[in-house]
């Protein structure tokens, strides 16, 4: 709107100038304004949620901090925009946020027609179902005829339809706008099952009055690779976001943690030397300083640390590493090397 009024008033003569200004890269914009505007989930424990003091936490939130660390060397140079499922893509497309780090599934249509680019996979997830234990079922295949609650405007609605259709089961779907309302309707027994990504189910279950009365069924009905996304057509920015994710994973593989990175910095390992920026010129190659990866680990930690602190077995969510473990430890998290 602002742009439109401005262009209408200033006139055609200046249009060319404003277009070239808009074409300046996101990385330059971010550096100029001094912070990263990051779109996150408003209320998902372990992924993106703010406490009473407005302090954000979650793995998606920490990823935003890692990006800020890479650029500014300061994890606090982030501003968070809580976005619900319906708002998130428009917010990114219209440049309200620089980066979307909000348990968003990487799909082909989002890559092709939404003008998005996914920087990688932060969390390998899959869609599941939560039901009351007293319903007496042990498999999603017994859900025929059930009313299922979910959030509107996600891939969940599509997977749900696919799953029930391919198994010739009847179902009814109730799609609410917000997580809170889905959970309330489920708790009031308006629907028999609650479906969303399994990680989300574990998080939402904690908010129920008696979490132990509910169980998550074993079937995972879809692949939900969740990861950060940026706008298409801005390669320098895409590269920074992508390599921030790779740096987190590589750091875990190299055994670099928040605590030990300072002492390991002086180690002889050429891999670590390249990582912390003592050897090579990798940082300047992507428009940052050479110690960009060092600053990520120093400020935020490595991938495993972020996982454990927010959703790992020692947290309330208690999610096992599973697929999200490193490739060398039985999982599928794998990052291209820094060299």
């Amino acid at each position, binding site marked *: 709107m602002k*742009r*439109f009024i401005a*262009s*209408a008033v200033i006139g055609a003569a200046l249009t060319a100038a404003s277009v070239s200004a808009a074409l300046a890269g996101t990385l330059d914009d971010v550096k100029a304004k001094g912070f990263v505007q990051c779109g996150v989930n408003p209320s998902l424990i372990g992924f993106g949620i703010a406490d009473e003091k407005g302090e954000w936490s979650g793995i998606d939130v920490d990823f935003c901090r890692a990006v800020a660390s890479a650029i500014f060397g300061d994890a606090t140079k982030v501003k968070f925009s809580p976005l619900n*499922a*319906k708002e998130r*893509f*428009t917010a990114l*497309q219209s440049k309200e946020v620089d980066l979307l780090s909000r348990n968003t599934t990487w799909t082909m*249509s*989002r890559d092709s*027609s*939404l*003008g998005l680019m996914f920087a990688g996979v932060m969390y390998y997830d899959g869609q599941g179902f939560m039901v009351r234990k*007293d*319903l*007496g*079922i042990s498999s999603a295949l*017994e*859900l*025929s*005829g*059930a*009313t299922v*609650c979910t959030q*509107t*405007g*996600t891939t969940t*609605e*599509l997977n*749900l*339809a*696919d799953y029930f*259709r391919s198994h010739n089961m*009847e*179902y*009814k*779907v*109730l*799609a*609410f*706008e*917000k997580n809170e*309302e889905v959970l*309330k*309707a489920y708790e*009031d*027994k*308006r629907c*028999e099952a609650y479906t969303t990504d399994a990680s989300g189910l574990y998080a939402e279950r904690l908010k129920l009055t008696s979490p132990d009365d509910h169980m998550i069924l074993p079937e995972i009905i879809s692949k939900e690779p969740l990861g950060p996304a940026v*706008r*298409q*057509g801005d390669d320098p920015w895409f590269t920074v976001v992508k390599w921030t994710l790779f740096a987190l994973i590589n750091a875990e593989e190299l055994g670099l943690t928040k605590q030990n990175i300072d002492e390991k910095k002086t180690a002889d390992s050429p891999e670590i030397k390249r990582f912390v920026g003592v050897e090579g010129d990798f940082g300047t190659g992507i428009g940052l300083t050479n110690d960009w990866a060092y600053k990520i680990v120093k400020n935020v930690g490595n991938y495993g640390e972020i996982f454990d602190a927010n959703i790992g077995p020692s947290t309330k969510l208690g999610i096992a590493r599973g697929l999200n473990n490193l490739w060398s430890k039985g999982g599928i998290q794998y990052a291209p090397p820094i060299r």
Partner: protein
Amino acid sequence: MKSGRSGAVSAGRHPLAIFNNPTFRGVFFQLVFVAGLGWIVWDLIQNTAHNLQRANIAAGYGFLERTAGFGIIQTMVSYSEASSYGRAVLVGLLNTLLVAGLGVVLATILGLIVGIARLSSNWLVAQIATAYVEIIRNIPLLLQLFFWYFAVLRSVPGMREKWTLFGVFHLNIGGLHAPRPVFGDGAIWILLAFPIALGIAVFVSHRGKQRFERTGRRPPLGWIYAGLFVLLPIAAFFLAGRPIALDMPQFSETGPLLKRGFKAGSGITVIPEFFGLLLALSIYTAAYIAEVVRGGIEAVNHGQTEAAYSIGLKRGQTLRLVVIPQALRVIIPPLSNQYLNLTKNSSLAVAVAYPDLVSVGGTVLNQTGQAVEMVSIWMLFYLGMSILTSLVMNYWNKRVALVER
């Protein structure tokens, strides 16, 4: 006037003098304004198209033909996951029309009752009506929607139980379950009975008016209408060989827990999301309509009422024949606003999972990413609905407007 004359006089002398002519000036600036507006709109469209293209976002309405792939809980036309996005949007659109249409009717009835009750000479009735208006219109609609949906509707039994009304209607958290009519051959005759009844009603009304003017006696038209519209279809039903069967909702109390309760597809189910939205919309809007009605009635000079009493009209007759027709002139314009508000407010449906146009459209938007196209469909629909409502209400307004003789 003075400047106009001097402008016309000086027009021949100076090339710019024509600007002193107010008629020319009026037309000129309106043209400039329209041209400016056109240019802004054109720039807006160009700019949007340019930006979409640069961001690699597909444009156009072609996505409406693609397969939607998601389910919708309430559909008035046939719809399945294999239907197109366009069909899904249509389903949402009809759901909006249903809730808005019924909401307007309910809000009008309730608003009329409360509005008249506020003027009642009975202290208690007037106070209750006042409390209703003050409480309802001072609480945000969204809160009331949550109240009706989450608090009140949740006091009904769960999915595996039911309350039965009159032996055929059943209520539980899954909604209101009722028998569904199944139309067989010959059912068309029952449908045809209605226009026939309408034709006869128009004729009777015409003759009744003539008789009233001749004799001063009112024929019991209400009873005749009721008889026509009830008896004719019933007669057609039997003459056509009872072509309507009822599909009763089936309820099972045994078997695995998930199989208990009402069988899907049996009977007709009105979902609580619909009731919640309808209740909230009608009760909220009724409070405003009540004030409009009260204002309208109070605008009618009390002398009119006294005059009506003095010629022997009863209270009800006075209200119906003297006060309300005059009050309507004051009531209709603000009433139209309330109808428009109700229609637009129905877009809050998404908060309680009622699949209206905004809710379904939001899903479509999110899955296709066609924000500009989807928002344009929303805008066109609500604009069209509002214009249509305005036209109908303006027509009605003209009909009741004071005719100066």
